[in-house]
């Protein structure tokens, strides 16, 4: 089985980083996986998105066009990708920044005020990780333990003090 995930938002929101954590989760669980960023000028302030595929089989096309899971971190991304989500798919929305509600009934949409939660808990820039916490809780794609291991791998040694913050963000996501 292959799970195709699309993460989208503004450049600087940590969309690629969140995707990287999911990719490393796949690595920790000995899955096949791919991580593909959008690249180019949009990286510097425009919209950024990132395709992640997790599978038991070798990955075919790494480009996610119809995601099983969408993580939307801003309104343009929500508007652009909500109709592309596969029936039965799951959508994780930062409801602090996205006012819209999903009109589709064939997908599950979770609204988490992740930017607000990050601010309240003094986790600057942690909105992306809070959404990942919610994602693993609702999808069962990875365990908390796997994601902790992934974070330890992804966070560069120079920023090791951020590891605890990221763990906290996951827990907030899982409990909201």
């Amino acid at each position, binding site marked *: 089985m292959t799970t195709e995930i699309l993460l989208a938002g503004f450049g600087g929101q940590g969309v690629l980083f969140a995707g990287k954590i999911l990719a*490393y989760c796949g*690595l920790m669980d000995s899955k096949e996986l791919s991580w*593909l960023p959008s690249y*180019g000028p949009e990286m510097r302030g425009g919209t950024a998105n990132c395709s992640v595929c997790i599978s038991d089989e070798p990955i*075919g*096309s790494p480009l996610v*066009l119809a995601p099983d899971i969408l993580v939307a971190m801003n309104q343009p991304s929500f508007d652009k990708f909500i109709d592309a989500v596969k029936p039965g798919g799951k959508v994780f929305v930062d409801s602090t920044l996205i006012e819209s509600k999903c009109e589709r009934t064939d997908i599950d949409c979770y609204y988490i005020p992740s930017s607000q939660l990050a601010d309240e808990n003094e986790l600057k820039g942690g909105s992306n990780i809070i959404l990942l916490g919610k994602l693993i809780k609702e999808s069962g794609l990875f365990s908390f333990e796997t994601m902790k291991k992934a974070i330890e791998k992804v966070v560069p040694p120079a920023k090791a003090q951020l590891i605890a913050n990221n763990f906290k963000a996951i827990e907030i996501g899982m409990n909201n």
Partner: protein
Amino acid sequence: MERNLMKGNEALAEAAIRAGCKCFFGYPITPQTELAAYMAKRMNKAGGVFLQAESEIAAVNMVLGAASTGVRAMTSSSSPGVSLKSEGISYIAGSDLPAVIINVQRGGPGLGGIQPSQADYWQATKALGHGDFHLLVYAPASVQEMVDMVVTAFDRADKYRMPAMILADGLLGQMMEPVSFPEINANAYDKSGWAADGHKNNREHHIINSLYLKPDELQKSVYDRFERYEQIKAEETDAELYLTEDCDILLCAYGATARVVKSAVNSARELGIKAGMFRPKTLWPFPVKEINEAAKNAKCLLDIEMSMGQMIDDVKLAINCSKPVHFFGRTGGVIPTPAEILEEIKKVGGAE
């Protein structure tokens, strides 16, 4: 073996270092820049040389200089930059020097775009510079293959004393996948018979040269090279054959496109359409034997590329135009989708 998660561009760089590449000369261009950045970080620590050149032209000539002394040397770029390197590549080929050149393709012509493309197939396989020559061209379809092919490219470049190219694209360069690194023997070939590294007063002086003013001498040097090419054609072709044994319709694709095609082939099979895929891993030499094997039961072929159709020429030549060869392509940085390829499969093969 340990699995690491790496971007294609970084994996190319790490594989080169592990393959004994002692120097990298580059120039920034999207979408291959991570490769140079990785080299800048790692190469000096690995005991090699990283140098950012003033131009692609200078970079490839630095490779020529280093390769002349017998060390493993590499440069990398993306399409417009590779055009600039073509002069040096022709000289490297004409001087019988081993070197590895990476092309992480983007859309063209001209400045084109920065999204993935396969529009440099003709350039890589037919005309990377002036004169009668070839270079080995490897087309990876995954980050792991990028690693494996860099290792092979250095080895075969040394073995045959000729330039080798990794023809990748922006999608492969930018994506991350798990990779593991094989054990590598970087010193399999003795270069002391030709390398210009100072004669120490104990041998004749060595000359690295591509100039032959007498036509019969130049002809002989080209004949000699083409004799080697015949051996390479016989021994170095490589391809993946996927579900080809019983296929009615044979899709042909290389590199990143082949991954999309594979997804479409699987969907076609689910619909009961007997589709298969031929994926050349070497573009020069083109796997003629392998495609004929793959196509033996097919009623038609469908060539898919991120270009207006370049490899299709080799496909038709390889099967001697014995079967219809259809084409579907996207270009300019547009990546074909599995759905639209499936439609093409239905169009050309499903009706039968």
